[in-house]
């Protein structure tokens, strides 16, 4: 009699184990997702910046997701300087137009791509390096007016965070 039941028994076994597996996976999901950033962390994941107080030539440093972000109101001279660079001269070749949405405003992460120090150049009294942008004092990386690496050990340009213009004078980062 048990031989007759074997196919049925196998099916029930299969169905139970499948359902059990689905259950176990469904139980794992809330536990794993609980390890993701919470809603309060995500609420701070984007920052709105009012650009109007920033005059030409001035730079602002804000904190976004725990890291410094450099916002620079570029002068025409700095914009010119950034555009007149041959791609062949760049370690990490990138057109300036690919790095800005509006030429006047450069928004880059203020974290050196070598080993993570915060480069100097935000204040007018700061050393700006040989290319008029930023200079990292830790190991001597020089960045230009588009935040691109020109000299020194850093491998990549200063990263551009995701941002949108909410209006002429307001951006939202992240």
């Amino acid at each position, binding site marked *: 009699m048990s031989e007759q039941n074997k196919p049925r028994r196998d099916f029930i076994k299969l169905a139970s184990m499948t359902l059990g597996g689905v259950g176990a996976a469904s139980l794992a999901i809330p536990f794993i997702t609980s390890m993701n950033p919470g*809603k309060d962390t995500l609420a701070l994941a984007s920052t709105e910046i009012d650009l109007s107080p920033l005059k030409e030539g001035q730079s602002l440093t804000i904190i976004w997701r725990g890291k410094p972000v450099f916002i620079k109101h570029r002068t025409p001279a700095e914009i010119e300087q950034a555009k007149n660079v041959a791609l062949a001269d760049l370690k990490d070749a990138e057109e300036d137009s690919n790095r800005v949405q509006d030429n006047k405003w450069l928004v880059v992460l203020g974290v050196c791509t070598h080993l993570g120090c915060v480069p100097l150049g935000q204040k007018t009294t700061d050393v700006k390096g040989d290319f008029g942008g930023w200079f990292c004092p830790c190991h001597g990386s020089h960045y230009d007016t588009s935040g691109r690496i020109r000299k020194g050990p850093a491998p990549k340009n200063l990263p551009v965070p995701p941002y949108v213009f909410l209006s002429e004078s307001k951006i939202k980062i992240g």
Partner: protein
Amino acid sequence: MSANDPQGYKKTLSSPYTGIKGWIDSRLPLIRMMEAEYLKFPVPKSLNYFWSFGGIAMFCLIGLILSGIFLGFHYKPSADDAFNSVERIMRDVNYGWLIRYLHANLVSFFFIATYIHIFRALYFGSYKAPRELVFIFGLLMFFLMMGTAFLGYTLPWGQMSYWGATVITNLFSAIPFVGDAILTVLLGDFNVGDATINRFYVLHWLLAFAILGLVIFHVITLHMTGSNNPTGSEPQSWDETLTFHPYITIKDLNATILFFILLAFVLFYYPNILGHSDNYIRANSMVTPAHIVPEWYFLPFYAILRAIPDKLGGVIAMFSSIGLLALLPWLDTSKVRSCLFRPIWRICVLLFALDFFILMYMGGKPAEGIYVIIARFGTAYWFLFLLVLAPLVGFLETPKQPLTISNYLKSKKA
């Protein structure tokens, strides 16, 4: 070298399995152990569903440890931050509310399963020789469970957390001579405070894993003797046994799923019903709640504590109510195990269970008037049961002739 040890000083690897299974098993014999202890292990055929609650308790423990770990990723064990961190878990952590409610309600269900499990031991004489150590390790785990639950309850740092901790830790000052010193060492301060909650968090983790460790000894001692069964008669042949797998695994799985249906019902629809609303109020050392009540699973012991008018006496009574239980294998003088065949003792055990519930009810009431009188009677019966009835009834009663497993099963089929 001896006849019993043919290999002598020379060790050779061997395993009943082949292939990768054999390679691993010959070096770490877990596979053959699992097969012996959880697949082929012989179990009496006559077990009823009371025997499923040990396994259910173990699933509760695993659930508590898992949910506890994931809560621990977010919880902050300081007096200033604890309450807020728990609310952060409830509101901002993804599924934090689910993990928190799961952890809190699993504690209650762990105690429900454990109390039914202990009742089974009392009713069917599972504590009697040769299973004395199974019972004692079980009671040790029960002590640790209560410690872990007490420590865990202080962690949300609500009003009940704080004041429950204050009341219970103050019991230590009842110990003569060294009481106050012990209390200060325990608290890390003059009152329950930041130092206390931090170390209670660590102790909570420690005790939880200590329980997990003791489970192993509990199971080893059980597997040395094999399970008891409703008749109290040991299996006389293979015919009176079943292999653990698939018969008990599927039976326990059924019971566990049903148990978790009950848990899910409480968790998803009435998650706060077993708790105290006062614990949603931030702890305030200047304001004492009108009624300090421990969680429901402590109430019988709380009733015993308050039944004795003397502070030290109450503490001794509370701890010895469980401590003396550990002596039951020797206090009970009967040669017959199961209450099915012990008509007088059966009444005593059922009254003991009723007493447990009565004390539970009294523990939730203020310690005055009729409540404390009934609690005193209840406490008196508890100790009467252990110290007087257990030895006397075993000696004086005329038990029925215990059935063998086969005869018992035949009589049930009829």
